[in-house]
């Protein structure tokens, strides 16, 4: 098979997997709607709805038809972007989600940056001092931090750093009056776009704690993966050859071992991106950021089922798409994976 065709085949297969995943996700959500106890129309219309309104919703959702017909109509609505209407905001759920998504993405991206900028140096240092005290300390820290529930860590740090010592704002996204004009919905980006440094700094003080809390668990994973990978590479023959040239350990580690170890770490970081969106839900609610997590949390509290399940569907779909993009990016960026994928077969 020619290289171009094998590429095309690869992307087609990936795309097929994603379509299958999205279809499964949608069907799962349909199943969820069906297992909700009680009258579906009443749930969709909200507990306070009048009988007339319930009847209207029943008719609009086509709940009198058979389950199979309902299933196809459900997909018909999904494909038109109709995730139902929230009974608390009285808005289409999709519209609510679109408004809250940027804030969540901002949190995840900043958390990822913190994650990598802590775990990569830590992994390098630990591998360089393998078996030493620093290595031991870092490994113990990774185990302990990796076992902490994110929402609890969020609460405790919020109490300590924000409430008690007032180093950082307690919750929210901006101080009153510091909000940049909404453009992307991402406070930091909007502040940059508006050229407002004060507003940017303000937004950063609000995001640093939530993002750091979100980063903790994932940075312990990256730390461990990088350390293991580095230790493996440091045992390989070519590292001995580099040492035989008279290279310093620093040069051996950063110039040769690190580039050869980074691949599994990047793969892991790619899968983390999706998982972090899920975990952001927990952190957001603690810090009252206007993201999907907080929206979902409120929807659960209000028994706003269409908003909850719409969020599940939306987050699931975004995670699927991110996984696809990460997969494809890896192939495009890394010539070695390309060779492994297309060279051998």
């Amino acid at each position, binding site marked *: 098979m020619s290289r171009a065709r094998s590429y095309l085949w690869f992307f087609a297969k990936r795309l097929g997997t994603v379509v299958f995943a999205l279809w499964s996700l949608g069907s799962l959500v349909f199943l969820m709607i069906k297992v909700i106890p009680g009258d579906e129309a009443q749930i969709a219309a909200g507990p306070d709805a009048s009988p007339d309104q319930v009847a209207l919703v029943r008719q609009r959702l086509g709940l009198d038809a058979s389950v199979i017909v309902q299933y196809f109509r459900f997909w018909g609505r999904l494909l038109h972007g109709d995730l139902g209407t929230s009974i608390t905001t009285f808005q289409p759920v999709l519209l609510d989600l679109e408004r809250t998504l940027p804030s969540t993405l901002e949190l995840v991206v900043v958390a990822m940056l913190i994650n990598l900028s802590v775990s990569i140096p830590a992994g390098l240092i630990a591998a360089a001092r393998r078996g030493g005290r620093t290595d031991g300390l870092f490994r113990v820290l990774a185990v302990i931090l990796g076992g902490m529930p994110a929402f609890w860590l969020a609460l405790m740090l919020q109490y300590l750093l924000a409430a008690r010592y007032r180093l950082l704002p307690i919750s929210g996204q901006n101080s009153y009056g510091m909000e940049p004009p909404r453009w992307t919905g991402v406070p930091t980006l909007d502040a940059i776009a508006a050229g407002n440094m004060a507003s940017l700094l303000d937004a950063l003080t609000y995001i640093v704690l939530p993002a750091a809390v979100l980063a903790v668990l994932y940075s312990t994973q990256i730390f461990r993966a990088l350390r293991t990978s580095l230790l493996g590479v440091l045992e*390989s*023959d*070519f590292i*001995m*050859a*580099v*040492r*035989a*040239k*008279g*290279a*310093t350990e620093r*040069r051996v580690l950063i110039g*040769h071992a690190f*580039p*050869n170890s980074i691949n599994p770490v990047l793969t892991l970081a790619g899968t983390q991106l999706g998982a972090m969106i899920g975990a952001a839900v927990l952190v957001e609610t603690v810090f009252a950021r206007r993201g999907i997590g907080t929206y979902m949390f409120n929807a659960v509290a209000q028994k706003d089922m269409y908003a909850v399940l719409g969020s599940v569907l939306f987050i699931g779909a975004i995670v699927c798409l991110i996984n696809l993009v990460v997969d494809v990016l890896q192939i495009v960026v890394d010539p*070695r994976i390309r*060779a492994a994928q297309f060279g051998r077969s």
Partner: protein
Amino acid sequence: MMMQPNPAGRPAPVPGEAPLLSVDNLCVSIRVDDRSVNIVDGVSFSIRRGERVALVGESGSGKSVTARALMRLERRMKATGSIVCDGRDILKLSDGEMRRVRGGTIGMVFQDPMSFLDPLRTIGDQIAETLRIRGVSRRDAERKALHILDELKVERAAERLTAYPHEFSGGMRQRVVLAMALIGDPRLLIADEPTTALDVRVQDQVLALLDEISRSRGLSVLFITHDLGIVAGFADRVMVMYAGSVVEDGDVYSTFAAPRHPYTRGLLDAVPRIDRDSDRLASIRGTPPHVFARPQGCPFHPRCDRAFERCVIERPVLRELGGMRVACHRPEPEAAR
């Protein structure tokens, strides 16, 4: 037929000149479960300037570990004794001084060129690195790299510099590894089975190249191999290692004509030869002992036809014997056959 060594055929020893490398009672040990095991067990030898010495032995005999210990490359093992190279004791150098020796005074060539090259760096980068480490500018280092590749008869060397290891053939990679070792202009080249991973035709090319380069540069070479066939054509002297110690050390002609140690004789008998009329190939019975289970007394005694009680009890030391050194209580007769 009796074959007398021909003194005119090998370089005359220069009296009074200090050897380039002299190793005295080198032991290399590794810790396993709180006890220490000697992998190399009291090895002593020296190499003169311009001399080419082959270190021969089966796998597990400790020859590679000896070679790496000379460069202090076995980080998990502990070396004792002394290794004096160019007037300085390697085992007493600071880490910084040791780095200057690696790639400077001593260059090293490894067995499998593919696994000893960084897959993510260009060939040019990797050859020049030895000089870059020493503060040479990128331009000068690359010019020198080009020069070395030319010297090693690599065609279209300038284009090759920007290629990656996986784009090269085995023989070409071995030349690259050789260039990496030579670019620092070493006095001693340690070649750890440099031809083992190559096919026979390429082996010959690399050997011829090594022969030529070492001659023209006056390099001392320590050539580690398990292939006696290679030794005969290349080395001035041959040392045979068995179970962590040198059992025989002599010039190539005498040793091949009349080995004094039963193990060396066994190895030589196992080499197929067309000039000798025999319908079967002799082989040494048994297998070499594992590092952790080396026998008492002479380590070779369980496999030796000439062994007697003393061999079981007392370990023979390397001693002078008719111009050679042999570690055996009952050496083969001087005039063989």
